[in-house]
């Protein structure tokens, strides 16, 4: 087990290392940041001085290692635009994004659970078909369009909920719903097929023969085992949520990482871009690692088969 954990952690680290190189190259490729920082009237000497001051005159390899060395300790440099340490910006925005992602995850689970179970129990009936339509619809709607429509109707015309920003629980509902609905389809489908398989298994039949109430069979005995594939894919859903959040956060003016990335990119603020991409990737990696380890605990066969 320890060997499995170590090799899995090592894999995540390698993936992150490759990613840091890509990010570093891409961030450098966005053009000379000095054009944005320095005033139009800056002279050649000003450029040379600023370049030396920011360490941009050193060889790329050296810049990369100093970047990684600092990044490991949480130092991502200073934002070119906000003139503040990037780590500070991240610390401000990250909790907002995580809270939104968690809320969205809860929304999608509370949709996917009843839909998936009902669809499986009533396989082939109109309930099954309706559940699948609701799920596929969420996957097919562009999130930013749903966001605009919700802002216009629920927040604008009906004035039921706030249109953007963070101000208490109510402000989570619209962005959380927009984000959460998008991944319902995948989860619901996994749960449905998992349930179908489990409901057909011997131990569920045994439970029924023993006289266990049908509701208990479905929601307790079967659901517990049908959950395993959903758990394994939780990491992927989380990654999708984090990515989709860029668009949703922009429409709802949500002060999270996604909007920070969008702002960073539009102003070529490369310390910010690097930090956001690496933080996002690290979160995804940690979630995936956690899921894999959890899975190995649930299902020992995984530890040996690769």
């Amino acid at each position: 087990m320890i060997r499995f954990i170590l090799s899995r952690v090592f894999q995540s680290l390698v993936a992150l290392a490759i990613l840091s190189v890509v990010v570093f190259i891409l961030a450098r490729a966005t053009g000379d940041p000095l054009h944005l920082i320095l005033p139009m009237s800056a002279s050649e000497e000003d450029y040379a001085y600023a370049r030396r001051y920011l360490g941009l005159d050193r060889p790329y390899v050296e810049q990369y290692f100093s970047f990684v060395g600092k990044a490991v300790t949480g130092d991502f440099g200073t934002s070119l635009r906000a003139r503040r340490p990037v780590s500070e910006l991240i610390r401000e925005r990250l909790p907002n994004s995580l809270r939104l992602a968690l809320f969205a995850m809860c929304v999608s689970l509370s949709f996917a659970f009843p839909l998936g179970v009902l669809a499986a129990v009533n396989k082939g009936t109109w309930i099954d078909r309706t559940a699948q339509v609701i799920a596929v619809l969420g996957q097919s709607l562009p999130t930013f369009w749903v966001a605009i429509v919700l802002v216009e109707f629920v927040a604008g015309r009906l004035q039921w909920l706030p249109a953007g920003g963070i101000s208490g629980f109510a402000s989570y509902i619209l962005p959380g719903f927009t984000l959460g609905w998008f991944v319902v389809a995948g989860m619901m489908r996994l749960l449905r097929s998992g349930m179908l398989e489990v409901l057909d298994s011997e131990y569920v039949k045994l439970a029924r023969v023993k006289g266990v109430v049908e509701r208990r069979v479905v929601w307790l005995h079967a659901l517990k085992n049908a959950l395993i594939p959903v758990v394994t894919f939780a990491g992927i859903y989380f990654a999708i949520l984090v990515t989709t959040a860029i668009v949703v956060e922009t429409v709802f003016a949500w002060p999270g990482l996604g909007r920070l990335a969008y702002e960073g990119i539009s102003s070529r603020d490369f310390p910010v871009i690097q930090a956001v991409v690496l933080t996002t990737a690290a979160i995804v990696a940690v979630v995936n690692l956690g899921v894999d380890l959890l899975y190995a605990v649930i299902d020992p066969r995984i530890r040996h088969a690769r």
Partner: protein
Amino acid sequence: MRADPMESATALPVAEPRAWRRLRDRGLPVIPLGIITIFVLIAILAPVISPADPEEQSLRSRFRPPVWDERGSWQHPLGTDRLGRDMLSRIFYGSRVSLTAGVVTVLLASAFGAAVGLVAGYYGGRVDAVLMRLTDATMSFPVILLALILAVTVGPSFANVVVAIAVVLWARYARVIRGQVLTLMELDFIAQARIAGAGAWRVISRHLLPNTLNTLVVLVTLQIGYVIIVEASLSFLGAGIPPPTPAWGSMIAEGREFVTSAWWVSFFPGLAILLVVLAFNLLGDWLRDTLDPKLRQL
């Protein structure tokens, strides 16, 4: 279904005629196929069927409502946008961007991803380890972020959008195909082909690839819809297809400020995206259930 005892022993590629027969027997998904056909025809015939030039501005007829509104007219069946451009024509032309982006991106990504998956699965060992680490790293990269960075770096263009999405998307194919190849490699017919002297290229192209085609077809169909949404999101954020070319995502963005007074400017492009993506998703679901029910996780 009676299994042919010779089947697993033959070294011939299994083209799976049974799967295709099953496909026909289940009855074709008429609605999704119909929607896709209609939009493909619209994209091809856009110059012929559009009532107006999609880029022609007419400030005198800005924000005309759709025809069923009492202020609307047949001249602009779906109304006009803030520059007086005809919405219907722009949606017709926009289908070209969305469909081409979806299909080209997915084809690029699937070709590369499948190649990586086949090679990794066939050679195993170090080759596999290196390729899979690369795949993992790619998968943890947020697609939209990468495309945004690329758009800023080299400027937004159709080619950049396609490349940016494909560069991340291939990893999914590599993972799934490699998994399948690993299973296939355990089977007798591959071992026999190798004993018979078939080289790597022959085993991969004649035996492994044909047996992963079903999965590829399903994954490709399901991902076209996803790519159309990602492309639209990029255009919405201003990092997609640059104006004045009509793209559904940027049309929604343009109408966003005027939702309260002119809802149709944002609404119809969104509806178009919904229809096309829904059709591809339904078709993909149907293909998966028909060709390979085990693929429920795709």
